Structures are given as structure tokens and as C-alpha cells.
């Protein structure tokens, strides 16, 4: 896979706001601005697809605002007799929903912090420093990327038992915070930074930690941003691992777990379930809307990097 493209494609600071490069495919240059039949067709298709696609999202939002007994009204209605914004408040009365949200934020933020520290330092060692055995260790890192989560959950759960970590915050954060993916991403980025910068800093008397913290890291801001968003989202949405390692949901349940138990406990309260679902969708949706330019590039590069 084309490793060099990652450093190129991860947006550099400064050019982040620049419009997307490249001409769009398929549209001949002379058709600029004119409504060709092809373009009209594309518009129609995209709009229809978007409408179909949005049905579940809109339905979730509308249902979250209905009284419970009107959700399954036949024929289906757009809104209930009254718009119940109160459902969103009721969610917090029905379960320890604040705990779920708090736990999710804590785990996602702490996990992202660990991933960033580990990935940037290791990426620096692989990308900027010369040491014996570097390439061998790097290959070892890459190989671990291939081990699937299903192979890991059973023995890692056994480890957690041995450590006495079952039902602890660190068990939610640490086991999947040392992925080689972040290291790989940062290494690729660091390699693209000119060596002269670093040498100048060293000649001026900066030690390795200072060079790393004051020269290299600031230059890698956008790569760090991409890694941060991806890591945050993956911790925020993680379901299988919390399901396994947490047994007291009221204490350590994260949002996905909370939503799932909601379904068991209040199976008939669809209105609250939908309100809770909508609430849980908001943070990452905002993240994507705000950072969409970075994300398009980030997904492309991270995707090509083999995630």
C-alpha cells in the first residue's frame, strides 16, 4: 500500500482551509456551470438517496418527541398530538444516564490522551531516530495490526481477571489504547518533516524531549487532530469490550451499554429509548460536521493506511 501518500494527504497546518484540490471526475471541463442532463440526473439520485438515507434519523428524532402510546400509531403520523421535549429530560430520570454520559466522556478523553501520547512518542522513535533493530520492531508493530479483536477479547479478559481489573476504568481504557495504528500514522507524518529543522534545534542545544515537544509535535498538529477524532469516536462508540469487562453498569456503564440496557429495562418506553439514542448521537455528529474537511482527508489516508 502506498505509504508515502499519508504524509502528503494528512492536511498540513495552514492548508487545512484550502479548498479541495483536483478536478472532479467525470465532468468535462467545458460543462462548467451548465446543467447537463447528467448533472440533473446526479442531483435527482443524490437527493432521493439522501431522503431515503435520512428516514431512520428523522424517524428517531420525531419518535423521541412523541408520547409513547403514539409512536406506533396506524397510519403513522409525523408528530404526535403534542411535541414532548420533556422526553429528553425524562431520559435522565429513568436510568443513570448522566453516569453513562460521564463514563463515556471520561473513557473517550482518557483513552484519546493515552493513544496520542503513546502514538506520537513511538512514531517519533520510528520516524526520526536511528537505532538498531528499529525496522524489526516496526514490522512487529505492523503485524499486531492484523490480530482481530475477537482473538484478543478472550485472553485480555483473562488478563483483566488476573490483574483484578474487571469492572475498573483502566480496563475500559488501557487494553485497546496501544494500537499500532496510531504509531504508524504518526511515523508516516513525522518522516515528512525536514531534518534541518530538528538539527537546528539540536545545535541550539535542545534535548530530544524539547525537540519533540516544541518542534516536531506542533508541526504535526493536523495529524494529531485526525488521530484524536478517530480515537475519540472509536472509544465513544465501543460496544463489545465494555459489554465484556464491565459488570456493574450503574457504576461503569458507557453510553452504548446504557442504551442497550435501556432496551431491556424499559423495553416498552420507545419514546425514551429514542430520546436517549438521539442524545448519544449528538456529540460525534457535531464532531463530524465541524471537522468534515479534515475527516474526508483523514478517512482517506487512515483508510488507505489499513484501518
Amino acid at each position, binding site marked *: 500500500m502506498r505509504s508515502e501518500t499519508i504524509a502528503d494527504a494528512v492536511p498540513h497546518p495552514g492548508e487545512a482551509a484550502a479548498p479541495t484540490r483536483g478536478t472532479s471526475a467525470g465532468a*468535462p471541463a467545458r460543462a462548467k456551470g451548465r446543467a447537463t442532463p447528467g448533472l440533473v440526473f446526479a442531483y435527482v439520485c443524490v437527493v432521493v438517496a439522501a431522503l431515503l438515507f435520512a428516514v431512520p434519523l428523522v424517524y428517531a428524532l420525531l419518535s423521541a418527541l412523541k408520547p409513547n402510546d403514539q409512536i406506533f400509531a396506524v397510519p403513522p403520523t409525523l408528530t404526535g398530538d403534542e411535541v414532548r421535549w420533556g422526553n429528553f429530560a425524562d431520559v435522565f430520570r429513568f436510568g443513570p444516564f448522566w453516569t453513562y454520559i460521564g463514563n463515556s466522556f471520561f473513557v473517550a478523553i482518557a483513552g484519546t490522551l493515552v493513544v496520542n501520547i503513546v502514538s506520537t512518542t513511538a512514531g517519533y522513535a520510528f520516524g526520526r531516530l536511528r537505532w538498531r533493530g528499529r525496522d524489526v520492531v516496526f514490522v512487529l508493530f505492523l503485524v499486531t495490526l492484523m490480530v482481530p479483536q475477537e482473538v*484478543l477479547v478472550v485472553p485480555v*479478559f483473562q488478563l483483566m481477571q488476573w490483574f483484578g481489573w474487571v469492572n475498573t476504568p483502566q480496563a475500559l481504557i488501557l487494553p485497546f489504547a496501544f494500537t499500532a495504528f496510531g504509531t504508524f500514522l504518526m511515523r508516516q507524518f513525522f518522516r515528512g518533516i525536514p531534518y534541518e529543522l530538528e538539527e537546528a534545534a539540536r545545535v541550539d542545544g535542545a534535548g530530544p524531549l524539547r525537540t519533540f515537544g516544541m518542534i516536531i509535535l506542533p508541526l504535526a498538529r493536523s495529524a494529531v487532530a485526525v488521530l484524536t477524532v478517530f480515537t475519540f469516536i472509536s472509544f*465513544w462508540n465501543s460496544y463489545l469490550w465494555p459489554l465484556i469487562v464491565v459488570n456493574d453498569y450503574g457504576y461503569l456503564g458507557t453510553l452504548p451499554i446504557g442504551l442497550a440496557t435501556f432496551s431491556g429495562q424499559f423495553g416498552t418506553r420507545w419514546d425514551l429509548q429514542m430520546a436517549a439514542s438521539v442524545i448519544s448521537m449528538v456529540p460525534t455528529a457535531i*464532531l463530524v460536521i465541524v471537522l468534515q474537511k479534515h475527516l474526508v482527508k483523514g478517512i482517506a489516508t487512515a483508510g*488507505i493506511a489499513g484501518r
Partner: protein
Amino acid sequence: MTATSAPEAPLRQRSRSRLRRIESRQALGFISPALVGLTVFTIAPVFLSIVMSLYDWPAWGTRSFVGLGNYVDLFTSHPDFWPALRNSAIFTLGFVPLNLAVSLSLALLLAPRIKGRAAFRVLFFIPVVTPMVANVLVWKMLLQPNGLFNGISTSWFGIELPSFLNHPQWAMVMVIVMSVWQGMGYNMLIFCAALEQLPEPVLEAARIDGAKGWRMFTKITLPLLSPAIFFTTVMTMITSMQVFAQPQLLTGGGPGNATLPIVMFIYDQAFTFQKMGLAAAAAWILFAIIIGLTALQFSAQKRWVHYEV
């Protein structure tokens, strides 16, 4: 760290190797958190898992060595194992082509200068980043016998739809459809990026030669996109063999075991029935299958993937 004495000409060789040593030490400092973490949480568990798969290994209590017994058990006597493998295979066969077709079509449709294309991208991408559990709950509601789909169908057209989640075949179809809705935005973004990077000279040359429409698409665009298609196919196949949350929450693996995928089988064996050794063995079989399929795709890529230069 600053006090490296000025190297003198005859000593240059020695001083360089000393710098080398210093740099190695620094590297060790930078790398050690990652190395320790990876060893404890990935490398050691891999070996532990191999060992576990050879034991009758309950979550608590005494373990006994059974050799390849777990593997033999799975293949010969476990009632759910083959169905679980079959279900994962059916899911993959349904999900991968549908996902690629939808995501590629949308990326191509968005490629011309469609106004508000960033907004469309975000819309299609949102289910990828929202919690899977929330997505599934919404779909569970849509698919209820008195949910939106059946509600519209009966009251507008007078057609009673099947009870999707209680029907063995429909349940799997709906797991696939829901998963495509949920996950296709990811591949769509990859295709969007690939389309933006198509080499303009090649496209221009093809246009001058009179290629357009369908011919342009099949003879030029598609071959140019083939590396991206290959990449997304491989990755999507790997992740779809690992499907868990959608069937677990939408159907609970049912009705019967009609939508029970292999990862849910592993989860159930390890954490419901406390047979961690058996689960570890099943996980290794799954891993072997994934590796095998991936290798197969890599060896087949020569036939249809065109790399430039």
C-alpha cells in the same frame, strides 16, 4: 543532554558511534510506552490465547489440557458452530457487494460539482460515527410489526409486510440492510477521495479520444479506481466477518440461530457459557479464515487491479 563535547577530527568515528548510542537510548525512551503496552495487551494475549485454546478453560475453576479437543469439538459436535460460520459467510456475501455498490454509486454521483456536496457527505457519514447501539435501536423500531415500514405499507398500500425480525431469512436481510445503511459512508468517503485524485491527464486523453458516458466509466474510471475498490473490498470483508453488534442487538442472533454470527458465538461461549478455551479456539479458526480470504483476494488482484506506474 546538551553537553556533547566538540568532536575532534581523529575522534570523529568514535564520537559518531557515541551519538548513535545516545540516540538509541533516547529512542528506547520514546518507544517503551508503546512497546510495553503492545507486549502486555496484544502480543502476550495472542500467546495466551493459543494456550487457552488447547485447554478446557472455564472463567473460574480448574483447567485441564485437552490438546486439539476444542477444535475437534467445534467442527464435529457443536450445534451452533457451523451455522454461525455460515451466517457470517452469508452476511459477508450480502453485505460486501451491496455496501460497495451503494458507496461507489454515491461517490460517483457526488463527484460532479453538486452543490452542497459536503453536506451530503456528512449526512451519509453520520451513521458511521454515531453509536451502533443507537442506530440499531432506531432500526429495531422501524422494523417492528407496527413500526414505520409496515405501518406505511398497510395503511397506504394495504400490503401486510412480513414480520422482519422473526423470520429466518428476512431477519438476515434486515441485518444486512441496516449494516449497509450504517457503514457504507466510510467506503463512500474513501471513494470520494480516490475520485478526487484521479490523474487528470489520463482523463483528458480519454476525452480527446472520444470516450464518454458508460464507456468512459467502464474503460477508464473503473480501472483507475480499482486499487481503491480492492482496498475497500478487502477491508470491508474483514470487518464483515467480524460483525457482532448489529445481529446481537437487532435479532439477538435469532430467530433460532438464523442470524447468529461467529463473533457472537465466540462471545456467548466465553462470557455466557464460560467456555473460554472453546471460544479462543473458535476465534483462531475465524482468524485463519480471514487470513485465508485476504490472501485469496491479494492473489486474485493481479487479474483486475490496475496500479499506475
